């Protein structure tokens, strides 16, 4: 039964059975427990309290930081001077000794050994310095050259890139450009002829000579009389890229790298020029 009527009424509403049960305390505590518990807790708390008191707030004497630097410097100076004195005393006390007159005789001794050419180490090594401890099979050197020759013949033939002579390289380049120019000129002249009845005599001669050269196939023969420098100058004056012209003229299609190789290796063009031996020809020819 509850003293609180509201709680009793509530409980009766939920369960008359439970409301009828005494709510008296069935548990018990040892005699004097609460007094002892209070003493235990206070003892523990006092321990905490004294531990807290044992840690005072950190303080420094008044003016401590103002004099700190000077104090440290004074201590450093004192320790240095004390250390110096101790080192000085140690320095004067020699631990090792040398024979009497050792340093007087030392220069002369060194000079005489240099002059004799027999330093202590070399005196020991001198007798053995020409002895080779290693050996080779008998007749090795006699057979070596023959063996190398035979192995060389077994090697697969190296890739050969056929190159034109340097002099003809420039000629082919110039011929390619000039042939193109001549072709364009002829087309231009033919167009003009439709507009003007009579071309000039000089241009007619040029066209006649050009047709003759192309028909007889002796363009190379004509260019062979020109120097490399003249051809390079001609190409440059006509706004041509000498390197590009050379590459176009000397490399066969089958020797050109695939497009993918330019993507995978940005030195592909350099490598090709090196293979063709025409890189920086402008510099070498000038």
């Amino acid at each position, binding site marked *: 039964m509850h003293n609180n009527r509201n709680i009793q009424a509530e409980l009766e509403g939920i369960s008359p059975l439970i409301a009828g049960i005494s709510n008296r305390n069935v548990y018990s505590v040892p005699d004097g427990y609460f007094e002892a518990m209070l003493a235990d*807790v206070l003892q523990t708390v006092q321990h905490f309290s004294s531990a807290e008191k044992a840690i005072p707030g950190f303080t420094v004497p008044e003016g401590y930081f103002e004099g700190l630097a000077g104090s440290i410097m004074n201590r450093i100076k004192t320790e240095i001077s004390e250390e110096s004195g101790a080192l000085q005393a140690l320095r004067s006390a020699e631990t090792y000794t040398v024979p009497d007159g050792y340093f007087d005789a030392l220069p002369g001794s060194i000079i005489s050994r240099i002059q004799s050419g027999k330093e202590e180490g070399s005196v020991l090594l001198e007798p053995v310095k020409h002895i080779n401890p290693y050996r080779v099979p008998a007749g090795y050197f006699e057979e070596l050259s023959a063996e190398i020759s035979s192995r060389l013949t077994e090697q697969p033939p190296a890739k050969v890139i056929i190159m034109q002579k340097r002099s003809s390289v420039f000629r082919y380049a110039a011929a390619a450009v000039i042939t193109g120019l001549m072709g364009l000129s002829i087309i231009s002249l033919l167009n003009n002829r439709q507009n003007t009845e009579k071309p000039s005599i000089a241009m007619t001669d040029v066209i006649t000579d050009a047709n003759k050269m192309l028909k007889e196939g002796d363009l190379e023969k004509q260019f062979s009389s020109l120097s490399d420098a003249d051809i390079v100058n001609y190409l440059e004056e006509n706004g041509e890229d000498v390197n590009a012209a050379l590459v176009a003229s000397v490399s066969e299609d089958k020797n050109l790298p695939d497009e993918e190789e330019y993507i995978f290796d940005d030195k592909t063009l350099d490598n090709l020029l090196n293979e063709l031996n025409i890189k920086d020809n402008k510099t070498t020819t000038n």
Partner: protein
Amino acid sequence: MAEHLDDKELLLQFKDEATREAAFTRIIKKYQEKLYWHIRRMVVEHEDANDVLQNMFIKVWKSLENFREDSQLYTWLYRIATNESLTFLQQQKKRSSISIDDEESPLTNKIKSDDHFDANKLEWKLQLAIQKLPEKQRAVFNLRYYEEMPYEEMSRVLETSEGALKASYHHAVKKIEEYILNG
């Protein structure tokens, strides 16, 4: 009568270092029995109740200085006692190697091992029935049934809404009735 000083006065004295220990002694004396029995009904054994109660008061000593006076000291102490009891029971569960298939829970065994246990008395049957409740619901039932605590205060102690507490208490009574009738 120092014991009858109200909680606000005790807290003021506690904040003064000169009267701190005296104030704390009065706080313990004022609440020790109520808190002990609340803890004891939760953990059953006296030794366990004693450990929980002492640890709880030491925590109170350490944190009372920062206690926010917008809640009552009485409510705060009950909250700490309840939480410490629940924590203790959780730790006991973890340490216990008894399988959940075992018929008797450790708390039931502790009740039955009490020197005054009498299986024929309804009061002891009631204790066995209470231990069958889930821990939080057991706290709700004990605070209402034994401490006769208003739902409003229980709400502050357990940080649960009054409606939820009423429902929880109702279900707890029904479970206990069922256990006593059929258990």
